[in-house]
């Protein structure tokens, strides 16, 4: 009997799918009766919705800040004139009109730095001090009172710069705080653990509105007579503590998902607790929860709109101010759409960026 010969089959490319636009359409839109039905219904819906929407927002719309024209076009055409007329009030709130170049400049610098910070070549040790410097410059620019700039009370800050400042500062402080709290909750020391649990549960158990109220109205009651803390600062502290509590739980989720063997291997190599945390634990734990972190960031960004209740006029608050004008009050929908579009642009940018971060941090996690 001769030996059985093992003849390996040569590797070959996978079969080529049917090409061409028609085949593609059939495969994606008319693949079975359910798919075909969904396609037809979707197309009908679009035919029903898009033309009127297009007519309302573009064809019959009034773009000039002409109140009479707007009133005439009402019902069948959008009045973007409200944005043209009230745009600066919506964007900058009650900030003195002639000085509005200052918040504009501050926003431009801050956004430029935000974008830069998102890019890999800028992840250098000098980025943190640069942030501190830029925030200080922005503060001076907005607050004035030196370098020949007219002082502007923080209570008069408003609109988009306020929204941006509240989100950026509260998230920048909340994120490191959240990491510390999450580490504290997993600490071996019962006292540290208790403090962190208490903090998270207290803050999470209360609505943000209550936190803002307490920060804004109750906090001063406990302060010695005569000392005043800026309302903006109080609100910032409130928002930061609130965001940090939620983020801490997100980070803790990542810490728990990390296999125990990773920490043991680091300990066996002689790495200290902080070295292990920085080099082994956090890079892996945070990678796991990027989507949840971004989720928290986005919701904090939008939650800044709640500061209206303590008389700070952020983007949505400034819109209400603008709509206080009886002539233009009718066109609140257009104003809301304008503000919504600004929020949307920022949220979608953040969300797209997080996809890139995930892919970047996934290096080495896939087998290929």
């Amino acid at each position, binding site marked *: 009997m001769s030996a059985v010969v093992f003849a390996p089959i040569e590797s070959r490319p996978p079969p080529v799918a049917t090409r061409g636009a028609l085949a593609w359409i059939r495969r994606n839109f008319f693949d079975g009766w359910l798919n075909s039905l969904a396609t037809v219904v979707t197309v009908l819906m679009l035919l029903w919705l898009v033309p009127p929407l297009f007519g309302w927002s573009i064809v019959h719309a009034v773009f000039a800040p002409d109140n009479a024209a707007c009133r005439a076009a009402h019902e069948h055409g959008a009045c973007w004139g409200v944005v043209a007329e009230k745009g600066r009030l919506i964007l900058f709130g009650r900030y003195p009109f002639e000085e509005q170049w200052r918040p504009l400049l501050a926003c431009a610098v801050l956004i430029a730095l935000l974008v830069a910070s998102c890019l890999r070549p800028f992840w250098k040790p000098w980025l943190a001090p640069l942030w501190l410097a830029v925030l200080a410059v922005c503060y001076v620019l907005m607050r004035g009172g030196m370098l020949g700039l007219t002082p502007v009370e923080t209570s008069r800050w408003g609109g988009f710069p306020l929204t941006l400042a509240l989100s950026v500062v509260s998230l920048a402080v909340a994120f490191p705080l959240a990491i510390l709290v999450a580490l504290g909750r997993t600490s071996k020391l019962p006292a540290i653990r208790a403090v962190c649990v208490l903090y998270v549960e207290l803050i999470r158990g209360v609505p943000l509105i209550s936190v803002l109220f307490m920060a804004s109205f109750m906090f001063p009651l406990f302060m010695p007579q005569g000392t005043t803390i800026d309302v903006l600062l109080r609100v910032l502290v409130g928002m930061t503590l609130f965001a940090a509590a939620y983020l801490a739980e997100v980070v803790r989720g990542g810490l728990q998902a990390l296999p125990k063997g*990773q920490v043991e291997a680091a*300990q066996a190599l*002689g790495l*200290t607790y902080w*070295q292990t945390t920085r080099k082994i634990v956090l890079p892996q734990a945070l990678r796991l929860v990027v989507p949840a972190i971004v989720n928290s960031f986005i919701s904090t960004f939008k939650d800044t709109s709640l500061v209206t209740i303590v008389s700070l006029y952020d983007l949505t608050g400034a819109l209400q101010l603008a709509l206080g004008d009886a002539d233009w009050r009718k066109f609140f929908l257009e104003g809301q759409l304008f503000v919504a579009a600004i929020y949307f642009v920022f949220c979608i940018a953040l969300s797209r960026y997080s996809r890139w971060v995930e892919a970047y941090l996934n*290096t080495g996690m896939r*087998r290929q």
Partner: protein
Amino acid sequence: MNDNEAPIIMFDKVSKWYGQFHVLRDIELRVAKGERIVICGPSGSGKSTLIRCVNRLEEHQSGHLTVDGIELTDDVKAIDAVRRNVGMVFQQFNLFPHLTVLENLTLAPMWVGKMPKKEAEDKAMTQLKRVRIAEQAQKYPLQLSGGQQQRVAIARALCLTPKIMLFDEPTSALDPEMINEVLEVMVDLAKQGITMLCVTHEMGFARQAADRVIFMDQGQIVEQNTPTEFFHHPKTDRAKDFLSKILSH
């Protein structure tokens, strides 16, 4: 075993509990410098816990444990000093998946040993050559096979030039085809005179490389002997029973 020299590892009536469960019971063990020991026994007998006490991944609750002249207590400095001299290889490899093979190896020398990067990398490459895997230095651990990963883990443990190497079932998680490549590296290492404590059921390795086999059951050292004596003439019924189960097929 040289009786004149002080043992490098000394267990003196060491006990440990997991909650109410008495996992290590009055362990008495002296390991001479350069000695190669294989620890075997049924699952749950405390083998892994025993070697994990040596670098304080587990704390013992009574008795004294001295490693390289340093007694292991709550003193963090003592623990750090011991860990610098003790390398460990795990069943699940525990390589850091977010770092390349080379970065896995240079991490401890750079951060614990305060070695300049260039020097740490040279040293890492030397160790990778020693485990015959230098060409994979730039890859990430998950891109390697199990056997390759375990060899990287051995190289990583060797980068701090430890006096003692601990192996916790290093081949148990491997495909059968890859066990040998890891055992070969371990045999090489054994020949070079490093002190080794190895929890394994690879009896071939024990015969080839060990000076002494320790058999554990229920948290105690039941018997210990040279590999030849232990395999051919086990003294206790418990060891006979265990050997008949693992050697019968």
